[in-house]
C-alpha cells in the first residue's frame, strides 16, 4: 500500500508522525516489532499496523527486510523517530534502498506531490531545506506534530533479521534528572566549573530562583558530574524555558542550538570574547565563583514573593 510508513521506539513520536501523515492526507502504516506496541498504538490513527515478527530483539537488524517491504509496498516516505535505534534503522534502510535520507528534520511538510524537509547544518548555524522526489527517508524528533486518534487494522508478517549482531544484555538507564523540555528556568553549568563540589554553587542559585540544573556535553560525558539527560545541545536536550542562565559555558554553536527558543538567555563567563555573549540577552564578564554567590543572594531577596 502506498503511503507514509512510520517507526519509532518512542510511541509518542510515532503517534505524532501518524498525525502528520493523516493531516497531509496520506495513508499511515505503522511498523511494530512486538505485540505490546501494536496493541498500545491500536488507536493512534494509523490505517494499518504491520506487526513484524522475527528472531532478533534488535529492531535495527531488520533494516534490510524493512527496505524490501517499503519497496514492495511502494511506500512514499519512511518517517522514523529520531532516537538512536530509529536513526540506525532509518539510515540502514536508506542505504539498502539507495534513497535520500534527511536526518533530524526541524520541519517537514507536503505539497504538490513533494515532501519538503528542513534541517540544520554546522551545529545549527545553517538551515537547509530540501525536497524529496520518490521514496525517501526522514528522521523526526519529538514534539513536531499533534497526534490523532482512530483504529488501526493489525496485520502480522514474518521478517528476516541480520543475525550477525546479537543482543547479550540490556541495562535500563534510570532517568535521574528533571525533564528539561518542560523546565521554566534552567541554570546550566559548563567546563568553567573547577570541581564537582562546586556544583553546589550552581544548585544554590538554581534553588534561589526555582530553576532546574543542566550542563554542557563535557560535564556529563567527560566528567560524568551530571547524568547524560541533563546536557543541552544538538546531541542532547532542546529546551525552551523562560530563563536560561549559564555559568562557565563558552557558548559553542552545538550547545546554543539547544537553547535558541529560550525567552531570555543570560551568560556568566570570565572570557569577554566567549561566543555565549553574542547569544545572550544579558551577561556578566566575571569569575563565576565571585559572581554566582552574589547573584544568588540578590535574586533570593527578589523572589521572596515567588509562588511555590
Amino acid at each position, binding site marked *: 500500500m502506498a503511503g507514509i510508513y512510520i517507526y519509532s521506539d518512542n510511541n509518542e513520536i510515532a503517534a505524532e508522525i501518524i498525525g502528520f501523515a493523516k493531516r497531509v492526507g496520506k495513508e499511515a502504516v505503522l511498523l511494530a516489532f512486538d505485540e505490546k506496541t501494536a496493541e498500545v498504538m491500536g488507536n493512534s490513527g494509523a490505517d494499518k499496523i504491520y506487526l513484524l515478527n522475527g528472531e532478533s530483539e534488535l529492531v535495527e537488524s531488520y533494516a534490510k527486510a524493512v527496505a524490501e517491504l517499503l519497496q514492495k509496498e511502494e511506500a512514499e516516505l519512511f518517517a522514523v523517530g529520531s532516537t538512536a535505534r530509529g536513526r540506525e534503522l532509518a539510515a540502514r534502510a536508506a542505504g539498502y534502498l539507495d534513497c535520500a535520507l534527511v*536526518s533530524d528534520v526541524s520541519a517537514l511538510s507536503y505539497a504538490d506531490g513533494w515532501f519538503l524537509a528542513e534541517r540544520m547544518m554546522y551545529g545549527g548555524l*545553517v538551515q537547509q531545506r530540501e525536497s524529496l522526489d520518490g521514496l525517501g527517508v526522514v528522521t523526526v524528533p519529538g514534539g513536531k506534530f499533534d497526534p490523532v486518534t482512530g483504529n488501526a487494522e493489525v496485520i502480522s508478517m514474518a521478517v528476516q533479521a541480520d543475525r550477525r549482531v546479537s543482543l547479550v544484555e540490556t541495562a535500563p538507564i534510570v532517568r535521574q534528572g528533571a525533564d528539561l523540555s518542560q523546565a521554566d528556568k534552567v541554570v546550566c553549568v559548563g567546563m568553567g566549573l573547577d570541581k564537582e563540589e562546586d556544583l553546589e554553587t550552581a544548585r544554590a542559585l538554581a534553588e534561589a530562583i526555582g530553576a532546574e540544573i543542566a550542563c554542557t556535553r563535557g560535564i556529563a560525558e567527560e566528567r560524568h558530574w551530571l547524568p547524560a539527560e541533563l546536557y543541552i545541545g544538538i546531541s542532547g536536550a532542546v529546551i525552551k524555558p523562560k530563563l536560561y542562565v549559564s555559568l562557565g559555558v563558552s557558548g559553542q554553536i552545538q550547545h546554543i542550538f539547544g537553547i535558541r527558543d529560550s525567552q531570555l538567555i543570560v551568560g556568566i563567563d570570565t572570557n569577554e570574547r566567549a561566543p555565549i555573549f553574542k547569544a*545572550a*540577552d544579558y551577561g556578566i564578564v566575571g569569575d563565576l565563583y565571585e559572581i554566582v554567590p552574589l547573584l544568588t543572594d540578590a535574586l533570593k531577596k527578589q523572589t521572596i514573593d515567588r509562588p511555590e
Partner: protein
Amino acid sequence: MSKVVACYKWVADEADLRIDADLSVDFSRVKGKISDYDKNAIAEAVNIATAWGEKAVGLTFGTAKAKQSVKDALSRGLEEGYWINADEAADADGAAVAKALAAVIQRIDDVGLVVCAEGASDTFARQVPSRIGAVLDWPVVTSVMKIEIAGNGLMTVRRLDDCMQTVKVQLPAVIAVLPEINTPPIPGLKAVMAAAKKPVHEFKGGDLGINFTPKTKAVEFKGYVMARKNVIFKEGEAADKVRELAAALRKEGVL
C-alpha cells in the same frame, strides 16, 4: 586478524563561518579541520588494530582541499592513508559518500572492521556509517561507547536513549563510536615527522563508477541568526554588575 579502516571527514571549521545580513553563508575565511569526533574514531581504530597486531588505515572522501588532512590523520597512529579526490564531494549527500567509501573499502585488501564517528561536525546527520554497512551488506553497530575483542568478533556496549545494550557482532562490520569512547592523544613531534613518510593512496572519484548526484534537491541554504539584546556588564565591581543584572531580570519579569 585483518585491517581496521577509520573513516574521517575533512570539514569546514564552523567557528570560521560568517552569516551575512541577507542570511547568506560566507565561507571565504574558513579553515578546514578533521571533523571533531572523527579523531575519536581514528584513535579507536588504532587501539583495536594494535590489540589485533594489525594495521589501522585512514579513509577520507573529499575535494582537493582534503589532501591536507592526510598527514594530520597519519600523525594520529594510522599506518596508511586512502584519499578519494572528487570535486563532487563538495555537495555529495550521505548516499554518495557511503557508496564512495564502500567502493574503496572493497578495494583495500582484507578489511575486518570500519570505524566511523557518531556524526560529522558539518552535517551531524549520523547516517553515513549505517549506510556504508548497507552498501557492503555488513552488520552495523552504532552509538558504541566501548569495544572489546571477543574471539573473532567484537563485544560492544551501546548507549541508547532508554538503556545500555551489550551487543556482540561478527566481522567484518561497521561501527560508529560515540566521542566518549576515548580521549584522542595529541600527536607529538615524532608522530608528525613519521606521518610524512607513510604511504598515501589516492583514488579519483570518477574511477569509482558512482553516480554522485544528490538524492534530494536543495531548495534553500541560509544562516540562522538569533535576535538577542546583548547587554553585557563587564566593567566595574562584581557587586555592581550583579545589581545591574538582577535589576534587568526583575524588569524582564522572568523571575
